[in-house]
């Protein structure tokens, strides 16, 4: 079994983004995706704090500290970018103008429910950021996450145990083992990593997997 690395997951997802899409990448793992969209394929990246048309991270000796993304990392503006305030920025999100949002998650259920903002397993401070707006508002929500937890429990489940971020929102999941669509039938396997059999994948998944129709 040869699981996808994080870079491979990002590259695989990036390859599925067509030119012209407006895309918001969640903080953490999803942020990597931008690096795998070649500049000549024009994809417009959005950041919650009012940037449309984010470019790559700046070289260390040319950082404009007035520009950060949602993860508070310094970024650049691409030619054609525009800056708006927070209400206008979330208008893009909540008004259904983004073609795609990619988020990390703790769990995704077979009906598309997503839990990605708090585990409530410790007394950590709850923090939601823009996840609920993005999950409810973007035209498509794709998730990037490890297929199982560190101790091997499935993250693709029949029903989320963690507090929900949004109901029936996820359309596709990119994991280290597979790419899986969420359809009316539930989880549909699109693609598996080398050496991962359908049966092995099912073993690591908490809900029934379907072969593509």
């Amino acid at each position, binding site marked *: 079994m040869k699981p996808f690395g994080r870079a491979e997951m990002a590259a695989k997802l990036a390859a599925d983004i067509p030119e012209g899409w407006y895309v918001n990448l969640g903080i953490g793992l999803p942020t990597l995706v931008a690096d795998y969209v070649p500049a000549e394929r024009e994809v417009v990246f959005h950041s919650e704090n009012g940037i449309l048309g984010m470019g790559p991270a700046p070289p260390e000796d040319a950082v404009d500290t007035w520009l950060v993304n949602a993860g508070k990392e310094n970024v650049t503006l691409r030619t054609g970018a525009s800056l708006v*305030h*927070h209400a206008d920025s979330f208008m893009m999100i909540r008004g259904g103008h983004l073609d795609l949002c990619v988020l990390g998650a703790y769990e995704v259920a077979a009906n598309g429910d997503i839990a990605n903002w708090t585990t409530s397993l410790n007394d950590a*401070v709850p923090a939601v950021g823009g996840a609920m707006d993005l999950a409810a508002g973007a035209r498509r929500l794709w998730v990037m996450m490890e297929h199982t937890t560190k101790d091997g429990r499935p993250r693709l489940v029949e029903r989320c145990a963690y507090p929900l971020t949004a109901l029936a929102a996820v359309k596709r999941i990119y994991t280290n083992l597979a790419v899986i669509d969420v359809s009316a039938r539930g989880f549909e396997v699109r693609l598996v990593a080398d050496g991962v059999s359908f049966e092995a994948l099912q073993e690591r998944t908490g809900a029934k997997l379907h072969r593509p129709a």
Partner: protein
Amino acid sequence: MIDKRVASMAEALAGIADGSTVLVGGFGAVGQPNALIDGLIEQGAKDLIIVANNAGMDAKVGLPRLMAAGRARKLVCSFPRGSTVFDELYKAGRIELEVVPQGTLAERIRAAGAGIPAFYTPTGVGTKLAEGKEQRHVGGRDCILEHALKADVALVEAWRADRWGNLTYKGSGRNFNPVMAAAATLTVVQSQHIDELGALDPEAVVTPGIFVSRVLHVPYGNPPPGNRRADVARPEAKR
């Protein structure tokens, strides 16, 4: 002559009462009105309800200082993570927290400025943050009712300002600042530059002066660098 410029921090923050609801602009370290927050500590108002996207980061700068000084009784916030000061106060039960989805937060503040007392939104439906809220099927979707978040005071950071209070911002320093400027009874601005009236292009003013009460000149320079990017493989960054 309309002149909203004030000469001192004391004048900028005069009259802010104990128990005020205070909107604080900024996202990450960009667009944070840190001088005004320091001034507010000095000014002495307590029992404040602070509305801000973050709880701040560096314990020595801005909101964490205000919270550490015991001035905030409640934080209304979308992402109160990364602030050890807030974490400790919260875990010790010494500060209340209302977590609001970031877009709902922006929209509730905008609604206050726009005279919309309440609106329906699909954001948050079916989650813990919808508990206790009216739910209704409207426009073809399940929605919850959210209320305007009106404030007594807004603390705003701008790039350029004139004596009428017209403002522009810089880069991602815009963020919540213009939305908050319109939603408070008293809007106080710290601006890096003060321009002659007429120097700002009428087509490019972001916050018209009608929303602004006082402008203080605070030319502090650039924000500190952002977070380091926690990436694994960055082919483009290698160039």
